[in-house]
């Protein structure tokens, strides 16, 4: 039987390979010039977050915010000083593990990332900072508070998040401001903290700075309990016995509800509950579950600035795309990309040295967070970073109850202090 006697085009394996091979050759030789040019104008940014593992919820939120920021910048014409070059995220997942985070950063640098952004956890960020110093690649930390990361004299590492020290100092300063304004002089305080790495560090830093502050308030009891504790009745009995005026709790979302309910049930009299900076007080689920009991709690946290135009734009997009709000963590992830774009715009190049130089002279105001213009000091820390004192205040819409009350120039409402006792709220 003869082959190809029939007229017409019949595709067999060899024919197909020949045809595609020829097409490939033609492309490689002459090619599509437009396409090649467009690719050259793409700037790769490595983004590393804990997208899986115990912190997955946070990591995924950060990744989404970073993608959102990239899309926003690209839709507004990309990096203009480089002919409208588009940003592109290379995604990495630290799996909430230090080593994985480091190797992911290594992979992204090999794949051509001009700058790395991440990484939420302090340990992972430290590892990536060291790697980036070796690879001479700029690294911008979005969230991670540990002081030491920027204390090593690294040239390539920058951070927009407040340090642990800044955290504690701001917290103490806010407390001072409140007590001075209300002319109150409490004498006794209790610090409670959850016994994981975060709680211990946060607790120790706060206690250290609080004692140095000269406020004249005794910390009469320090109470720690394990993460995921099922019951705090004994601890609250101890708090009650210490007769404090103020309670400084460092919580996670689970234990803040048990703690507050126990305080209510055991009728612990307090001037107020002021968290030195911890989750467990502003999450929608906590506000819904605790309702009136969480009112008037203050928390010293890095926070979004809802009055900023950038916030409104980003939050609307976030709601539309992911049915999620812009909050502290994804807000900082979002801001980091804006800072990178700003630096690239001024560097006019993807050369590492030029990007670092541009980052050094950053003066970036249009971000959605509470804080001044982002400027970096010689360590790479953000001089404009600050926490905000937020307070849960009555509002018909539970999602709008968390309000910035300090610093005054960012305040959305006046704070209420001393707070009415937990059982006197109708």
């Amino acid at each position, binding site marked *: 039987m003869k082959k190809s006697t029939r007229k017409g085009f019949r595709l067999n394996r060899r024919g197909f390979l020949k045809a595609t091979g020829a097409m490939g050759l033609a492309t490689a030789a002459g090619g599509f010039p437009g396409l090649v040019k467009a690719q050259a104008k793409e700037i790769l940014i490595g983004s590393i977050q804990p997208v899986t593992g115990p912190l997955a919820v946070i990591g995924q939120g950060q990744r989404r915010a970073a993608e959102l920021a990239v899309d926003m910048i690209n839709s507004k014409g990309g990096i203009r000083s480089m002919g409208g070059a588009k940003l592109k995220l290379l995604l990495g997942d630290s799996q909430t593990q230090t080593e994985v985070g480091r190797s992911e950063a290594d992979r992204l640098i090999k794949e051509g990332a001009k700058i790395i952004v991440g990484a939420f956890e302090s340990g992972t960020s430290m590892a990536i900072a060291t790697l980036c110093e070796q690879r001479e690649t700029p690294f911008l930390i979005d969230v991670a508070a540990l002081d030491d990361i920027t204390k090593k004299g690294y040239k390539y590492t920058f951070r927009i998040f407040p340090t642990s020290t800044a955290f504690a100092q701001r917290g103490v300063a806010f407390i001072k401001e409140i007590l001075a304004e209300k002319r109150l002089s409490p004498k006794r305080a209790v610090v409670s903290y959850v016994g994981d790495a975060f709680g211990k560090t946060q607790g120790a830093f706060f206690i250290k700075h609080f004692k140095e502050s000269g406020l004249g308030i005794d910390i009469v009891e320090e109470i720690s309990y394990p993460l995921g504790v099922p019951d705090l009745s*004994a601890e609250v*009995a101890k708090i009650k016995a210490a007769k404090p005026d103020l309670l400084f709790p460092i919580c996670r979302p689970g234990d803040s509800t048990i703690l507050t309910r126990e305080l209510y*049930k055991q009728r612990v009299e307090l001037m107020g509950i002021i968290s030195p900076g911890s989750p467990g007080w502003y999450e929608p*689920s906590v506000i819904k*579950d605790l309702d009136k009991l969480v009112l008037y709690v203050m928390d010293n946290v890095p926070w979004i600035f809802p009055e900023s135009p950038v916030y409104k734009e980003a939050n609307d997009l976030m709601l539309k795309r992911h049915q999620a709000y812009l909050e502290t963590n994804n807000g900082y992830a979002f801001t980091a990309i804006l800072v990178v774009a700003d630096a690239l715009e001024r560097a006019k190049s993807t050369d590492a040295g030029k990007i670092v130089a541009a980052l050094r002279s950053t003066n970036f105001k249009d971000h959605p967070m509470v804080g001044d213009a982002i400027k970096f000091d010689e360590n790479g820390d953000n001089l404009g970073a600050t926490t905000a004192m937020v307070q849960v205040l009555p509002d018909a819409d539970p999602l709008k109850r968390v309000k910035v009350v300090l610093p005054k120039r960012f305040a959305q409402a006046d704070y209420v202090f001393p707070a009415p006792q937990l059982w006197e709220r109708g």
Partner: protein
Amino acid sequence: MNYALLLQLTVQGILLGGIYGLIAVGLSLIFGVMGVINFAHGPMMVMGMYVSYWILVVLGIDPYLSLVLVAACIFVLGYLVQFLVVNRILDFPEAMQVLPLVAIGLILENSVLLLWGPDPRSPKTLLGLAAVPLGSATIDVSRLVAFCLAVAITGSILLFLKKTDLGKAIRAAADNRTGALLIGIKVDRINNFSFAMGAATTGAAGALLIPLIPLSPHLGHDFTLTAFVVVILGGMGNLLGALVGGLILGVAESLSTLFVPATMKQVVSFSLLVVIMLWRPQGLLGGRR
């Protein structure tokens, strides 16, 4: 010594101990009848908590009122686990019995995670915030109710085992399996029933804990361990022992707060376990009765 604090801690310890007792009674029952340690016990309790939570959120029925319904659901779950898995591994060496039950625990834990997500939840309940003063101390009403119900449930299980035919058959099967088979007791069915009953009690305990503990999928394993310690304290398979052991552990944990930070609570309970093992390995009230 601060007596007000001491009183408060003791009262809280006793009340918490009652619930520990109820969780442990189920474990003890299962061990007493089949000689199997139910490592899925804590996750079953968590399942009970979530079922109860779900009923509260969807139908608005308070955990105290849905208690029987929750117990029934977990009874069915326990029956299935026994019927499908445990019956087939009863004659295996002990080390091999552990793994399937741990696996069931993991499956339950992750099903809860899949169905309800990882966030802790702490819904408002009827008596959730009620408290009554007792001298200088305050008694948490939901804790008191949980304690009373726990004691009542344990008491009725004991009565059931002593007085009814089915209860007597369960005790016969626990005492001498071959003998029970010889006199015509359907030991397989007895096994299914006792496992299901053990599961149901821990499910009920879960419902009672709703006002006290924020729900989280990962609570289970800690409670398996706590129940295990309690059972060993009281004597393996001894139901009254489980209640007594629960009370002792509750008070010990609560009072330990006076001397050590709460992060060390588990050290206290496990030290207690080691001491009992050395001093009275059969448990305070003796095993398997």
